[in-house]
Every structure is written in structure tokens, then in C-alpha cells.
């Protein structure tokens, strides 16, 4: 006897998507001076959702000018106490509109509604709530008795957690007294534009937050603008390096949150079923569109067969399909371009001799989809063990001793995160100490919290987001001592 799931679709009725959106500059939506618009689609259906303005140089200039004016005339003169109240207002409005934001995020991004509803949007509200409280307490944060804001922050964010990445950028920037020009990713602009509406509802002074939409060129114009004081970027390591080059020799403070190739390390004493849950969450959460995803599974040899068996059995129960269905585990790949990249890397895995496996799961006719995939017989030299795939693809390697696990885990230019699964406390702390990574999850994975700093070692970037360390990214912390 089998039990089938009945469809449980979330309703789209809660969102009103305009047929086109201008740029949010100086507290108002304005037509782009460029006159250009581009379409944004639902990646699960390929239906056009709206047309979004493509900001050109004149638009970027206008946005930076608005942010500068708001910084000079209003925000830098406002007390921390009052800044805090605006940020608290924003947090509350996000909570009030959370269902709408979750639906909008899922429509524009393709991620399962369960994730946008239960993970993304609650964390967005939490980030604003946490940082609001810092605005009038910065002198207690350990950055000196009178820490200063930087000025205008240029922020460029990715498409994997659109509104959450916006929150990670805007909440600390505002709390520390900076004004903001933010550019969302070109495939996921809609929740950022909804956030602009939230700023209006909160009566945030005009120009404190400016949202300009566009593609890579718009982002480049923004970070290269001579009148910005801070550049914050989350995205690919390749673009991050280009940005670091571009801001070299300027006084712009830079923080980068780039790619990863995290090892998730399973020791033979770990409770297998619990660990498999965490490992599945580690790589298949958000279709693997996660920079800190546990994309390399390191299995201790003695339990490798048993763990793989459990893993495959668990993957057969994952439900791929309509992201708006509350039962869906794996949603749509965010774009055709990303799907092609995943397909290309997966093919390289086969070509280089690794063994490919996916559960049988029906793939919808329209939209962009990639089934959860596991590669075994992977060596450290394979591209799928070295390059960030940013998709639901897990590369499995094995090890014998803790020392070998450390060696393999750290054998990457990245250093964003790592996972450790073992019942032995002393080994957890020993492994955590050895990991050259900014976030170490032990007996859990992919946990996020506004109080908890996030960011990388090595080529995964520098600077932190969240916690006390994250405030340092938006304060003038450098001196000539």
C-alpha cells in the first residue's frame, strides 16, 4: 500500500505584482534614465512575472547622490536611538507581510515555499530586529568609544537568498549609521522592490535605502562609483576578485562573501540516520544554491557503504516539483544559465570517471530542474570535488583517519564552512580547531542566526556578516596604529 501526497499549493492571491517596476531612489520609485527594462520570470514555469528597470550610469549616479544626501543631511545626524526605531519598524513590517514576501520570493526565485516561509523570511525579520538594537549601543561593541559610520555603502547581492541577503547587507549598514545603494541579482529583484515599499511604509527618510535593479554592468558601475565609501558583495569568487581589483587603491572598505566547497565529514561513530538528515539538508537545501553548502561528503571508510545506502534511500523520498506546494523539498533551479552550469559540471564528473546517481523523480515539463545527484568514486582532482557547482550535486570521498579528513577538508582554496558528524566531543573540538573555515557546524548543518557571524577564510572572502564581528564591516575600524 502506498500513500500519495495530495497537492497542497500556497495561493498566489496574496501578492500583487506590478507589470513593471522603476528604480527606488530618494524614497520614490522613478523611471530609469536608461529607459531600459528587463523581464523577470518564474523559474518553475518560465512565465514572465514583471519587467524590471535596468539602471544605467546616470541612474547609478542618481542613487549614490540620493544616498550621499541622506547620509549628510539626515542619517549621520540622527541619534542611534532614532535609527534603531526605524529599523525596528522595518522588522515589524516584515513580520506583518511575511506571507506575502514568502510567496513573492518563491515565485521569483523557485525555492520551495516551505523554505521561504520557514527559513528565509523569519531570518530576514530577525536580522533587522537584532541590528536595530545595536544602533544606539555601538560604543559597547568593542570598536572603540565612539565608532564612526563609513558613509554610503554599495551593496551587491546574489539570487540564492534574495531578501535574506538584502537583510544581511542593509540591517547592519543602517544600524551602524550608513546609507545604502543596493543592487539585487537580475533574476530575483522582486522582493528587494517589495522591501522598498516597506521602507516607504516605515517612513524611512528618503535616500537612506536606494534599490537599483540591473545586471552585472549595473553592479560594476555601483562598486566603482567614486562617491561610495563601502563595498559589500556576496556572490561568485570570480566576480569578487574583480571587485577587489577594482577597489584597490581606493579608501572604500571592502567585504566579500564568496564561494565555497565545504566538506561534510562523517565519522564512523555518528548516528547515521541523524547525520544523513543533516547531510541531505547540507547539500539539497535551496537546490544546493548555497555558498556554504556541504558539497563534498567525506565518509569514514568503515561506514561508507552503509552511509551511502541510507543517503540514497533518503533521497528517494525527496519531492521535487512545484515550489508553491507546501510538500515540495526541491524547487526549481533559479535560471537557465545556472542549470547549464550545473549540467556542464555534472557531465565533467561523468567524463572524469566518477559514478553518477539520482533517485527516480519526475521532472516537470516547463521550468528549470535538476534532480538531487550523488557522485561516488570521486577523487580530489575531479572538477566536481574542486569547483563550486551551486546546485544539488554531492561529491562523495572517503577517509580513514581524522588527520586524513582534515587534510582533505582543507585541500581547497575556499574556506567558508565545514561540517563534522561524530559523537566524540573531544574530536569535534579538535576538528573544529583544524578546519580552515569561517563557520563550522558540528552535528548540524546550514544553521543561520543574526547573532552568529558568517563569512570565509581564504578565497571564500573576508569580513563577517552577523554578530559583533559583522558590525565591524560597517564601521570605521581601521586606524594608523
Amino acid at each position, binding site marked *: 500500500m502506498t500513500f500519495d501526497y495530495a497537492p497542497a499549493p500556497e495561493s498566489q492571491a496574496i501578492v500583487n505584482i506590478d507589470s513593471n517596476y522603476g528604480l527606488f531612489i530618494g524614497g520614490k520609485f522613478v523611471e530609469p534614465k536608461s529607459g531600459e527594462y528587463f523581464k523577470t520570470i518564474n523559474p518553475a514555469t518560465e512565465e514572465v512575472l514583471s519587467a524590471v528597470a535596468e539602471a544605467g550610469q546616470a541612474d547609478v549616479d542618481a542613487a549614490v547622490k540620493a544616498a550621499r544626501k541622506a547620509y549628510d543631511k539626515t542619517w549621520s545626524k540622527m541619534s542611534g536611538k532614532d535609527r534603531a526605531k526605524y529599523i525596528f519598524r522595518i522588522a515589524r513590517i516584515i513580520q506583518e507581510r511575511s506571507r506575502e514576501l514568502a510567496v513573492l520570493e518563491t515565485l521569483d526565485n523557485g525555492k520551495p515555499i516551505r523554505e521561504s516561509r520557514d527559513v528565509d523570511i523569519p531570518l530576514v525579520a530577525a536580522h533587522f530586529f537584532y541590528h536595530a538594537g545595536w544602533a544606539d549601543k555601538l560604543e559597547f561593541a568593542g570598536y572603540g568609544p565612539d565608532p564612526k559610520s563609513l558613509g554610503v555603502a554599495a551593496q551587491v547581492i546574489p539570487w540564492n537568498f534574495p531578501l535574506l541577503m538584502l537583510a544581511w547587507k542593509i540591517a547592519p549598514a543602517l544600524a551602524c549609521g550608513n546609507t545604502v545603494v543596493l543592487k539585487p541579482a537580475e533574476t530575483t529583484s522582486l522582493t528587494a522592490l517589495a522591501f522598498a515599499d516597506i521602507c516607504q511604509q516605515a517612513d524611512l527618510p528618503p535616500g537612506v535605502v536606494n534599490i537599483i535593479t540591473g545586471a552585472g554592468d549595473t553592479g560594476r558601475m555601483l562598486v566603482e562609483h567614486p562617491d561610495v565609501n563601502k563595498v559589500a558583495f556576496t556572490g561568485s*569568487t570570480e566576480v569578487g576578485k574583480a571587485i577587489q581589483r577594482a577597489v584597490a*587603491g581606493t579608501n572604500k572598505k571592502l567585504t566579500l562573501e564568496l564561494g565555497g566547497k565545504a566538506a561534510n565529514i562523517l565519522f564512523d561513530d555518528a548516528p547515521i540516520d541523524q547525520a544523513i538528515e543533516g547531510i541531505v539538508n547540507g547539500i539539497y537545501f535551496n537546490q544546493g544554491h548555497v555558498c556554504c553548502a556541504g558539497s563534498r561528503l567525506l565518509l569514514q571508510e568503515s561506514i561508507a557503504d552503509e552511509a551511502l545506502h541510507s543517503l540514497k534511500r533518503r533521497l528517494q523520498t525527496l519531492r521535487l516539483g512545484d515550489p508553491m506546494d507546501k510538500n515540495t523539498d526541491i524547487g526549481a533551479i533559479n535560471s537557465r544559465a545556472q542549470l547549464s552550469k550545473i549540467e556542464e559540471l555534472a557531465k565533467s564528473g561523468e567524463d572524469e570517471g566518477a559514478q553518477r546517481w539520482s533517485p527516480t523523480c519526475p521532472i516537470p515539463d516547463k521550468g528549470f530542474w535538476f534532480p538531487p545527484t550523488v557522485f561516488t568514486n570521486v577523487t580530489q582532482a575531479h572538477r566536481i570535488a574542486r569547483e563550486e557547482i551551486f546546485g544539488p550535486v554531492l561529491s562523495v570521498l572517503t577517509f580513514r583517519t581524522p588527520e586524513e579528513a582534515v587534510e582533505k577538508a582543507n585541500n581547497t582554496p575556499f574556506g567558508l564552512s565545514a561540517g563534522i558528524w561524530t559523537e566524540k566531543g573531544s574530536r*569535534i573540538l579538535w576538528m573544529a580547531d583544524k578546519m580552515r*573555515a569561517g563557520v563550522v557546524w558540528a552535528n548540524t548543518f546550514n544553521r543561520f*542566526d543574526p547573532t552568529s557571524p558568517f563569512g570565509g*577564510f581564504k*578565497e571564500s*572572502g573576508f569580513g563577517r556578516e552577523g554578530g*559583533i564581528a559583522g558590525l565591524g564591516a560597517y564601521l570605521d575600524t581601521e586606524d*594608523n596604529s
Partner: protein
Amino acid sequence: MSRVEVRKTHKLFIGGAFPRSESGRTYEVTDTNGTFIANVAQASRKDARDAVLAARSAFAKWSTATAYNRGQVLYRIAEVMEGRREQFIAEIEQGEGVSTKKAANQLDAAIDRWVWYAGWADKYAQLIGNTNPVAGPYFNFSIPDPTGVVAAVAPQDQSILGLTSVIAPVIVTGNSCVVMPSPVHPIPAITLAECLATSDVPGGVVNVLTGAPAEVMPWLAEHADVNALDLTGIVDESVATELERQAAGTVKRVRQPKPGADWYATPTLSRIRAFTEIKTVWHPIGA
């Protein structure tokens, strides 16, 4: 008849040893009047690579030494320097053309700075690190880890105090470094290397390359096994900018030169922060 003194050969300091430059090159160092003081080794690209290799090899052990141990090792540097007071003061006086009193003041400040940073070894993590009250059943803490191998250019003035102010905050947290002292006043740096070699600092934790930063630093800025650059001593903005660009190739952390430093003032934690990485660890809480 007065005795003919035995002069010293001024060499590089790599992996705890004192090699000549593999290039066989030296350059003349003079006092402020142009009078010859010594021929000093002029480091090459190969020397820079050897120094990075030595620094990387030393990192594993130094970065996992206890904070108490690192503090004692730094304090030991101050002790050994104190024993070489006369030599340091004479070298500063001759090289920089300052009075004995000024030279002594500089040395005193340098020795005291080692003591100051020695005391930080087991404290900075308590200030920069913390536990984080996450909204869930997890224990979560953040600690500063050393960044790795740091390539540094010491200030061009205040030969021993500037050098000390750059090296001490880098190594106190467990980093290893390759440092280029002032090419005009390199002699006290070589004497410092001799102090480091005899004060329990493991070989390779500090490597000293005398020579031209503009020639050697680009190799270090591009070297994939260097994690960070400290450009404090780079005075030419265009050189600093180019090094920063090169550093982007492997996403190195870069501390830009900041003019107007007062090396006698008490430092802040900004240098320690610049070359440490916050690592955050999560673990579930459950019965």
C-alpha cells in the same frame, strides 16, 4: 695598537637560518652622510618563495601553540633584545643619524611593544571572540583564528620600533610572516633576526628579507600561499595599489598603508583584528 674588529656579514633570515640571497646580490647600506656601513643581502624572487615555504611550514605548529606559550615566546624576544641594547642603539644611531638618546628611546619603545603584545597573547580572543545567543537549541561561539602567512613591509622610518610594531601583532595570534624591513635602515632588522633566532621563536615564524620591496613584494602579492599583505611601509601609492590588485588574485586580506602613524602611541587592536579570521562553531544542545 688598536684591535682590528671582526665585521658581520649581513644575511637574510629564512626558516631560522641565515642564508645569503640565492641571487648572490648585495647592496650598499650607508649612514645619512653616505658613508659605507655594510653590504646587505638583496633578496630575490627565489628568496621570497623560500621564505613563504618556511613560513607555511612553521604555521601549523605556531598557530596551535598555546596562547600562554606564544605570550612567553614574545616576552622572551624582549628579554633577548634587552641584552643587546648597546648594539641596537649604536645601529639606530648610525643608520638613522639620530642622537644616542633618541636611538635609546626608540629601542626602549620597541622592547616595551614586544612586552605589550606578549601580554595580549592570551587576552585578545576573550575580547574579539564571544558566545552568540542564537534563537535555537545550539551552543554557538566565535573565536579569532590566525589568517595564515602574512607578507609585510615595515615602515621606512623608526627602523626597529616600526618593524616591531608590524611583526608583533602578526605573530602574537599564531600567524607566520615574511617581512621586508626598511631598505635604507635594514641593520637593526638583521640584529632583531638574531634575537628571534635565540629566543624560542620557532624557525620560519618570522622571515626577514632585506632588499627592495618594490621588487620582491609583487611576487609575494601574487603567491598563492600568502594569505595577507601588510603594506604599512609602502610609501608610493601607485605601488600599494598595484600590490592590492595583485592580491585580489587569491583574495588576500590587505592592510593598506596609513600615513601619519605615531609609532610611540599605544596601539589599538586593529592590527590583531586585521590578521585574524572569526571562526564560528555551532553544536546542538540536547539531553
